[in-house]
């Protein structure tokens, strides 16, 4: 991808009307895309009176952090954040381990039925979670995991996307590297985690981001399996309680503050790892 030096826009000599239109379109797209989040932040600093004003107030006159404090008291935000962190981190670690191992086997071993098994696993990528939700709910209940964090985590410790991503990247790791480690007497498990994993570090970064963000944000399964046990609610579930806490325009600041708090971790993760994210889509998403 070509990088354009900063200041190119202002070199008016060879900039035609098409360039001006292009700049306008880019700015417009960026503004439309950023607007809801900017509005969210601005509204979180408004007083309840400002939130109810017609026509709407854009910039709060005296920004207040009150809404953030109120969120913390209404939904036990600390506990919710902790639950989200436990769910997202544990699930991500599990996915990394299972995906690395299975991706390695699918990429580097030859065994009977390999391609069929791989196809069957990949097919589950196209299965929306609602299709399996009802029996899964019962199944996890039978295991005694309903209403617990384990119930949220355990069914998600492996997924097709991770296995697919890892297989794509590990296929590109030279066999010589693996054979050399075998000659040195390394076990296969050691090879996966000490030789192959470092060689596919960008893919691991990408999968970490995908998995963490997905499981931080996911709503349907925790809502179903936790059965209203609010002590174990992750932040996304607790947010929904803000809406019913005080219906109407009164709670706008509160809801916006809560949303802003929930958005922060995945967005931070994205800013830190976005380079790998895009690269992994480029090299795995389409070629596959």
């Amino acid at each position: 991808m070509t990088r354009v030096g900063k200041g190119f826009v202002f070199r008016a000599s060879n900039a035609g009307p098409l360039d001006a239109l292009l700049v306008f379109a880019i700015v417009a797209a960026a503004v439309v895309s950023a607007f809801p989040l900017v509005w969210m932040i601005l509204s979180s600093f408004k007083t309840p009176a400002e939130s109810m004003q017609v026509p709407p107030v854009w910039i709060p006159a005296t920004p207040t952090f009150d809404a953030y404090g109120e969120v913390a008291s209404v939904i036990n935000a600390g506990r919710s954040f902790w639950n989200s962190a436990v769910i997202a981190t544990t699930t991500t670690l599990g996915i990394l381990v299972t995906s690395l191992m299975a991706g390695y086997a699918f990429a580097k071993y030859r065994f009977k039925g390999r391609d069929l098994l791989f196809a069957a696993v990949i097919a589950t990528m196209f299965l929306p979670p609602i299709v399996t939700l009802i029996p899964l709910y019962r199944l996890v209940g039978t295991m005694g995991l309903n209403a617990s964090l384990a119930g949220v985590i355990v069914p998600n410790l492996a997924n097709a996307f991770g296995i697919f991503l890892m297989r794509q990247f590990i296929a590109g790791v030279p066999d010589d590297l693996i054979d050399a480690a075998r000659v040195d007497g390394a076990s296969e498990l050691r090879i996966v985690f000490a030789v192959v994993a470092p060689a596919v570090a960008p893919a691991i970064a990408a999968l970490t981001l995908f998995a963490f963000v997905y499981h931080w944000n996911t709503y349907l399964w925790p809502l179903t399996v936790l059965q209203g046990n609010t002590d174990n609610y992750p932040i996304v579930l607790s947010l929904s309680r803000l809406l019913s806490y005080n219906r109407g325009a009164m709670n706008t600041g509160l809801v916006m503050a809560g949303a802003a708090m929930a958005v922060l971790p995945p967005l931070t993760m994205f800013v830190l790892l976005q380079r790998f994210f895009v690269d992994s889509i480029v090299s795995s998403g389409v070629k596959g």
Partner: protein
Amino acid sequence: MTRSTRTSALVMLTPAVSLVGVFIFLPMLLTIWLSFQAWSTQTGFGAAQFVGLQNYADLLSPLSVGRDFRQASWNTAVYTLLSVVVILPLSVLLGLMVHQNRVAGGHVLRTILFSTYMVPMIAVALVWSKLYSPNEGPLNQILGWFGVGRQMWLSSPDTALVSVVILNVWQQVGYFTVLVIAGLTQIPVALYEAARIDGANPVQSFFGVTLPLLRRTLLFSAVIAVINAVQVFEPVALITQGGPANSTNVLTYYIRRVGIERAQGGLGSAMAVMLMLALIVVIVALFAFARQGEHEK
């Protein structure tokens, strides 16, 4: 294949394959089996009683559950179609805007677009429900500046579903834009050079070079967009509860409502099977459509 590779393959595959087997394949088979049973979700699987095609018959009957199911199926189809039809062209347009190198700003735009994809859907739903607010929301105010009248957005059966489509497009388009960018980077620059030498203008080279070579990307995008669209849940569960007048009742919401909240597991499973079949048909049709286009070339 040596014995030791077989053992190693087993060790490597067991964690992932058993998890996917127990928590995805087994429930999928159970869904199909349960769709032929009368079964309360509150009881064990052993309590299920075979009823043949009764659940399916109920879904096609004039009973209220049948009417609501058909409405939810229709809403889901409309929602999915609208999402795909808006997202695909928009992602190509935005992808071209990011990928071009005439003016700066593409990379910043990509970051902003993609960052919305990181936002939890629940936060998207909450924020947009306030943006849409007919009185104190900013969207009606902005439209007012351009002389557009007051819209009811999520509060009117005529506009509620479209309003949910808009917030969904806003959240997801960045992901599809990155897919398009990925596709664009794989088009050899030489092809554009050749088109230019042949006297093609930018519009002609877009339709002659870019679009045909993006076919696989767009097929992949379309499949993912369909699968994402049928999963819409949070805005409906939280903001509209399927209303007003059933206009935003979509399948993910309705299946959960019947199968989990009302504990009618057999009936909910029959709906899930119908959804699964519909998805298979749509995805196969998309692949067939893309392949047919390839032959015509």
